[in-house]
């Protein structure tokens, strides 16, 4: 173990100190349980001692989220969850990050009022999968992307972890606000279960997972017989919306690039005023204050550029991911409709077959003996009818089941989409307002910088009378 950790030489000492502790923790689950249960109501800082100290990039310097308004959460609601305090863990098999999840709850279904657990990203993936299974036509919020090799090269970098943590907070708060999802059993376990219990739960193969997928994969559902107008409209709207918002992002990104160049030109521009002021005693003050105003503007511009990712790019990406979830649900619904239509088709086909056979049988009652000339025995009309007699009721049941499923799906989806539409509007409003606010902030800074130069000009200008006299006596010719 020491060998594996030796790459992080900077933390070698600390790690070896805790090495024993780790092994004890891992192997002795019961001990952990004991510790954890006694800790359930103790503030989280004690938690840290049981976990390995963080890597070179110390997370301990990260401020724990004290102020819940950061998460835009209502502290007075009956369920309030915050995610913070990332810590790195070393295992024999892997290293990973866990986050501390603090839940404050005042609901009857919960035994305690506060829970503190640690979860890792994969646990979130598990949760989402469970929610999808249980509520296939609810709109389950998306999770932040898995680590990709293209983007962040260091999945333990502070920035990456912070961004992920923020996204996980958003994920959880969306679930909290969802009337159905927040009551889901697995969700409850996710936020309350202690480490060993949760591990057991994770490893469980529930009957759900063994059940075959609800949609038979080989039903072609690219073309529906009856387009569902309402959902179709929603689908079209969402496609256009995604298109528009992506355009907005593209334009913003382009402008941002141009801003970077503008800021760099301003960097060269303002010092020239200062240089010039050195040889112009009477203009020096004015030149220097002009330089300072330009510098302030440049700094403000850099601020806008630096904020771009957090203010525009990431929120829009998150929004489009959320829209994608809705599109997926709509797609699923369509597959349900396809299944239903397909089974209905089948039933109708069989019924028509039956009717035909009945007609033939009644027309020629004696002509139902298979001809002795054929090499194989043709199934007789009666036999066929018998088969159909068995098959059709089964199909009817199947059609009814599919119809039920479809109608359930439609209902659930419709109501959740409606709920989501409100949320979506608020999200867009927030994104657009942030976008506008950043610009307002920038211009406010620029205005104030130039106002102060103007004020200084006015205060040092000689009063008008003096100026006239100056002009009159000015030239010495």
């Amino acid at each position, binding site marked *: 173990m020491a060998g594996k950790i030796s790459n992080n030489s900077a933390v070698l000492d600390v790690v070896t100190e805790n090495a024993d502790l780790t092994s004890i923790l891992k192997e002795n689950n019961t001990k952990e349980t004991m510790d954890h249960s006694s800790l359930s109501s103790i503030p989280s800082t004690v938690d840290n001692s049981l976990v390995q100290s963080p890597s070179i990039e110390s997370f301990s310097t990260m401020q724990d989220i004290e102020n819940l308004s950061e998460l835009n959460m209502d502290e007075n609601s009956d369920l309030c969850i915050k995610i913070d305090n990332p810590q790195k863990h070393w295992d024999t098999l892997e290293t990973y990050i866990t986050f501390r999840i603090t839940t404050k709850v005042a609901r009857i279904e919960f035994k305690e009022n506060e829970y503190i657990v640690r979860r890792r990203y994969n646990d979130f993936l598990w949760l989402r999968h469970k929610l999808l299974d249980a509520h296939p036509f609810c709109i389950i919020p998306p999770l932040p992307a898995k680590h990709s090799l293209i983007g962040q090269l260091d999945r333990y970098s502070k920035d990456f972890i912070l961004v992920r943590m923020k996204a996980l907070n958003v994920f959880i708060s969306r679930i909290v606000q969802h009337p159905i999802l927040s009551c889901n059993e697995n969700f409850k376990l996710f936020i309350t279960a202690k480490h060993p219990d949760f591990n057991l739960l994770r490893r469980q193969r529930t009957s759900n997972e063994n059940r075959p997928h609800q949609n038979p994969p080989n039903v072609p559902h690219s073309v529906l017989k009856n387009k569902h107008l309402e959902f179709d409209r929603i689908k079209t*709207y969402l496609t*256009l*919306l995604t298109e*528009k*918002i992506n*355009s*907005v992002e593209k*334009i913003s990104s*382009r*402008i941002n690039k*141009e*801003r970077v*160049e*503008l800021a760099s*030109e*301003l960097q*060269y*521009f303002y010092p*020239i*005023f200062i*240089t*010039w002021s050195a*040889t*112009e005693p*009477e*203009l020096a003050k*004015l*030149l220097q204050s*002009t330089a300072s*105003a330009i510098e302030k*503007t440049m700094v403000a511009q850099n601020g806008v550029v630096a904020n771009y990712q957090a203010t525009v790019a990431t929120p829009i990406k998150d929004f489009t991911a959320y829209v994608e979830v809705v599109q997926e649900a709509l797609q699923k619904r369509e597959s349900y409709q396809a299944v239903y239509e397909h089974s209905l088709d089948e039933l109708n086909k069989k019924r028509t077959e039956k009717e035909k056979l009945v007609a033939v049988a009644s027309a020629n009652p004696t002509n139902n003996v298979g001809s002795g000339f054929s090499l194989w025995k043709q199934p007789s009309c009666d036999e066929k009818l018998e088969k159909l007699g068995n098959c059709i009721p089964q199909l009817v049941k199947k059609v009814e089941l599919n119809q039920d499923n479809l109608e359930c799906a439609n209902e659930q989806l419709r109501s959740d989409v409606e709920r989501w539409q409100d949320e979506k*509007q608020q999200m*867009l*409003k927030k994104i*657009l*307002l942030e976008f*506008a*606010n950043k*610009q*307002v902030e920038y*211009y*406010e800074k*620029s*205005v104030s910088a*130039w*106002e102060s*130069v*103007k004020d200084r*000009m006015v205060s040092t200008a000689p009063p008008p009378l003096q100026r*006239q006299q100056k*002009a*009159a*006596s*000015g*030239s*010495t*010719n």
Partner: protein
Amino acid sequence: MWNALNVRRIRRAMAENGNRKKIYGESKERKEDILLQHAEIAVSESEKRANGSLNLREFYTVYLIETKATDPEFQNKISKLDTVWRRYTEFEQLRDYLEVTYPYVVLPPLPEKRVMFGWQKLSTDTFDPDFIDRRRAGLENFLLRVAAHTVLSWDKNFMEFLQHEDGWRESYKANGYLQIAESKLKALNVSVRLKNTDSKFDSLKVYSGTFHTNIYNLLKARSRVAEKQYNVYKLHANYGRVFSEWSAIEKDMGDALQKTGHYLDSLASSIDASLEDEELLVDQFKEYLFFANSLSSVCKHREMLQYEVETSEESVASKNVERVKAQQGKLGMMSRLFGAVDTDEVRELKVNMLDQQIQEGETVVNSANVKLSTFTDNAIKDIDRFQSQKVSDLKDTLASFVLLQLKTAKRGLQTWVQIRDCLQNIP
């Protein structure tokens, strides 16, 4: 395009009016008598003309100078209203003449011959209507400056220039000013080694160099900033289309999105006016960029005169040495080989000749010294005048620059606040 050009012309005309009021107002305050107190000068129009045959057309632009006497008693010197058409080269000729005739004056510069610090919106084409209009304004400014100078404004040649289109051309040719100017100004470019340099003028020369560099760098950097600023603003127009398309598919948000799109469009177009106003200020800075050259020319002229003094003094000094030697009879090749060989007669002849030469030489030295000291006195006076005018003008220009930046920033702020308010209204 026509519309945009005229808008720019009108805006420039408005700025000129303001400038003119200032110049005429200031001239009224002056104690000394200057032409501007009795007349008004304007370069009001431009026209494209062609020389040569149909195949070898050579185009050039002429400008209309209108001179109007504002002082009724002055009518004897200037007729009520004179109009002449002049091209840029004629202005150059006038200026060369003035430089050669009044070398101690920090001469007002002409507007640039070619576009400096061009960028996306500032065409470098000298036939571009914008460029021609800006040149017209610059030429007017030049004439006003000359007419506000106590010495220059009364120059006969200058008055001819304003009043008699052909008359001036003829007299210019007749006096051979072209050749004089060419030779004198060419001489200016030759660098001379001086024994004693005047520290004041030395530092003035250095100063004119730094002054030029500073303004040059400033204008260069500004044009790059302007380009980037222009790009940032113009890109916002792309939002307009997207927001308008987006508003079409929204119910509650449609109104806000539509309005936002319009505001962003207006933001994008607002930068045009700001940068046009800024170009007017750039022209004011450019004038002083060229003034730096005028200042350093004065220093060079003085160096030429100092050089004359020194060479003439040297010549007298060597004549004196010769005289001493002649006195001793040691002059000439023979005396060097064989010692003193001159007879008394010869010696006296030589000495007398040298005495005469020395006397002539000393007269030359005296006149050179007088020339130098008169020049120096006049130059110092004019440089002082120039410096205080420079401070006043650049203060105004910088102040205008600051106010322009403030105005642009305020407009941006107002637009974004409107956008934000609009978005707040989304239910």
